[in-house]
């Protein structure tokens, strides 16, 4: 009889199902034992959790079988429908608690570093991966590690969960679980149409932090003024990290003096006066103080005193912590990845990790999905560098050209919902850097034309760009079709292969879509050289899918612990 009820209640009418169970006296005596109300409730919760686990995992299996996707988020969606407090229920069972990681840029890389470090320290690490940083992704993470009785595997012993959390999801996650460590890495403008303005994110975070218990340790970037200010007034422990290497100042970077920098935290969080910088590394990241109210960058507890670039993806950093120095190699490109490593190290110290696993964890890390990832394509190399907002893009460009070598580049600009539908931000990116540094340049994506105009106004001659939009204009297609209908069969073929003189798209390549963009870019890259692909988020997914189909990379979700 219970089995029957189970299978009936998989659809989301769980509330009704529960009421039915309470009202029907014959059943309640069987399934719900009489007792104090809280015990009764707990028993109910265990049942619902079990049900949620079974239903979620079934849905995931079906989704995978039908090739609807990785089937990771559907697990969480279904489980949450059945038991909205599933995260709360499960997270409480994890012995070493949860580390949450957020920020505009570097969430995936930072949480990847933390996971690697803690794994090396001997803990069982449960880590939500790429693209599952909303509530449903977190729910999935737990559900796929739970048994049908609603208990985590091995009751969560020696386990710790590392949760990468979307900026806008922080208030919800903080309601659902008490984080042991909360890492706030940075805050830049990103997808204004989706997240709203930077100020509104900060006020949501501030509110979320006020709800955290004093047992939580905040790990904050001292060099990002709006992040550092989150620590003021917090009851629990706060650990700051920062960089103290004056040679990284923008003023001292060759050719960088007149570069355009978008600052997303110009004014003092305390009094509203403009910050003064003694050192500025990029955007609003640096050593700042307020001349009006005296607000200062907090002294970092963990600081990098030297950054040395050995090669493109080999940053040698020296860290100082409680009068001890440690040298670590960060195997990823760019100063932003030094910050990510530093955030991860600080978070690991906050859960009392030794230095040995910290060093091995960082040094042996592989780039996360699309974040500097290397792919071998026969006799050429592809490097994927995700860039999804002005500061991220600026830093990718700076890193790309840091060695002064001209590169082979494929830009992909999409404006799907996950990318942000407003592409105005490309005008805040310093594409002027690309001038003279692109050996070959292909531009693709749903907004290829917007990006091409941006590059044109940056001063790149149109002849140097190959523009491959995702599809031709419909009116051009129609025109060609009617001509085809009128013409004979032979002519029809000619028209398909050679463009008509009337077409205004003459300067734009007559091929469309990502596939041909990738082909063209690879063809333009000489044997033995590297093609740098810089996509927005959905562009990255599309490139990966394409590379998978060519057998160059494993399946996107294969690496996931499903």
């Amino acid at each position, binding site marked *: 009889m219970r089995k029957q009820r189970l299978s009936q209640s998989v659809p989301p009418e769980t509330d009704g199902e529960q009421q039915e169970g309470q009202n029907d006296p014959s059943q309640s005596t069987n399934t719900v034992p009489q007792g104090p109300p809280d015990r009764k409730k707990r028993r109910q919760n265990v049942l619902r959790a079990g049900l949620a686990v079974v239903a979620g995992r079934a849905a995931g299996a079906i989704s995978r079988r039908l090739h609807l996707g990785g089937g990771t988020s559907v697990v969480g969606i279904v489980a949450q429908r059945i038991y909205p407090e599933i995260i709360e229920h499960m997270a409480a069972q994890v012995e070493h608690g949860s580390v949450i990681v957020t920020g505009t840029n570097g969430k995936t890389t930072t949480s990847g570093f933390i996971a690697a470090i803690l794994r090396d320290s001997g803990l069982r690490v449960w880590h939500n991966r790429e693209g599952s940083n909303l509530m449903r992704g977190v729910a999935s993470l737990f559900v796929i590690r739970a048994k049908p009785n609603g208990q985590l595997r091995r009751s969560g012993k020696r386990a710790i969960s590392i949760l990468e959390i979307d900026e806008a999801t922080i208030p919800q996650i903080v309601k659902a679980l008490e984080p042991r460590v909360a890492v706030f890495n940075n805050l830049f403008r990103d997808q204004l*149409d989706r997240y709203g303005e930077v100020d509104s994110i900060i006020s949501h975070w501030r509110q979320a932090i006020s709800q955290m218990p004093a047992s939580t340790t905040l790990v904050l970037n001292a060099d990002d003024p709006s992040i550092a200010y989150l620590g003021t007034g917090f009851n629990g422990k706060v650990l700051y990290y920062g960089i103290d290497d004056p040679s990284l100042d923008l003023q001292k970077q060759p050719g960088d003096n007149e570069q355009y920098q978008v600052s997303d935290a110009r004014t003092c969080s305390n009094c*509203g006066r403009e910050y003064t910088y003694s050192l500025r590394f990029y955007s609003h990241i640096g050593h700042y103080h307020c001349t009006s109210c005296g607000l200062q960058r907090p002294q970092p507890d963990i600081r990098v005193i030297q950054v040395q670039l050995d090669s493109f993806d080999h940053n040698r950093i020296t860290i100082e912590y409680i009068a001890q120095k440690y040298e670590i190699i960060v195997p990823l490109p760019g100063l932003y990845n030094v910050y990510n490593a530093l955030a991860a190290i600080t978070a690991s110290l906050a859960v009392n990790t030794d230095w040995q696993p910290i060093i091995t964890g960082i040094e042996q890390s592989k780039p996360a999905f699309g974040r500097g990832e290397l792919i071998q394509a026969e006799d050429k190399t592809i490097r994927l560098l995700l860039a999804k907002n002005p500061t991220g893009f600026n830093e990718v460009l700076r890193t790309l050209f840091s060695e002064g070598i001209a590169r082979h580049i494929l830009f992909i600009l999409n404006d799907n919902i996950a990318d942000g*539908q407003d592409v105005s931000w490309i005008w*805040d990116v310093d594409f002027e850097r690309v001038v003279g540094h692109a050996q070959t340049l292909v531009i693709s994506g749903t907004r290829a*034309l*917007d990006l091409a105009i941006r590059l044109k106004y940056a001063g790149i001659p149109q002849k140097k760009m190959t523009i491959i939009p995702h599809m031709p*204009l419909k*009116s*051009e297609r129609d025109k060609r079709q009617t001509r085809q209908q009128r013409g004979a069969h032979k002519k029809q073929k000619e028209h398909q292969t050679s463009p008509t003189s009337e077409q205004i798209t003459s300067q734009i390549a007559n091929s469309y879509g990502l596939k041909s963009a990738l082909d063209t870019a690879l063809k333009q890259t000489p044997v033995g050289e590297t093609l740098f692909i810089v996509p927005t988020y959905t562009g990255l997914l599309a490139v990966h899918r394409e590379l998978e189909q060519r057998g160059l990379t494993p399946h996107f979700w294969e690496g996931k612990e499903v």
Partner: protein
Amino acid sequence: MSDGFTQPLTLTLGHLYPDQLNLYGDRGNILTLRRRCQLRGIELRIVGLGIGDALAPDEYDMLFIGGGQDKEQAPVAQDLHEMKGIGLWAAIEDDMPVLAVCGGFQLLAHYYRPAEGPDMQGLGVFDAWTIHKGARTARCIGDIAIRWNGQTLVGFENHGGRTYLGTAKPLGKVLKGNGNNAEDYTEGAIYRNAYGTYLHGSLLPKNPHFADYLIKLALQRKYRSEFHTDQGTPEEFNGHIHIDQVPMDGSQQLERIADNVGAHLLPLDDVLEWEAHASLLERLGLHSEVTAVLAAQRMRKG
């Protein structure tokens, strides 16, 4: 035209509050104006006018004001009243071209009424006002196309406030999108040569005709003629004024010639710009507009 001398034309653009109001790719508008001037040999100087800087109308030929975060608009509104108001008014009454985008547009209208809290006073250049109806009313977000001057303008809009026009003329009629308030199909506002709009994305790169229109207005205003003559057909403008004789009154001569050529800016290669313009129209389902744009482009190419 033998032994005359040539003199390069210069324009000065005042960029209001570049640090405070820079949220929606406003830099694209500035870069576009600069580049389109440069390609015609016109020197466009850009002067940033921050909080506390005065605005002397004689020093500028064109003004731009962008959009920003709510927090940053309040000090800007105050500065606009206390520091720049008189200068800005004088400039506008003297027909200076002014482009105000998004937050800048709201600041040049009468007031901005937030869902909570006190009104933010604007300058009242446009007889219009903006009301934020609270978090429950959806923001106006998305691609937009409007009809302006018999042509189309395309862009992206993202605003919470709804703007209502009093006697102000709209910039254009909404073809697809929300516009000022998602109710009456108006978009933006015009007063003399001041243009307010919600279109960004950025606005000018994909609307080269509108960018050139603003440049022309500035050129005509700066070098306007006091006497209209019929000195042959106007030459196509290449950024230099050719002066046949060393004039007695050099400035007057200069003005006259610029007036002629100002209306005929050297056409540029805008294939990419129009292609992007057309592709946005197509996304919005405005197929007849796409055809019109492509036909006009073919005409331009000859």
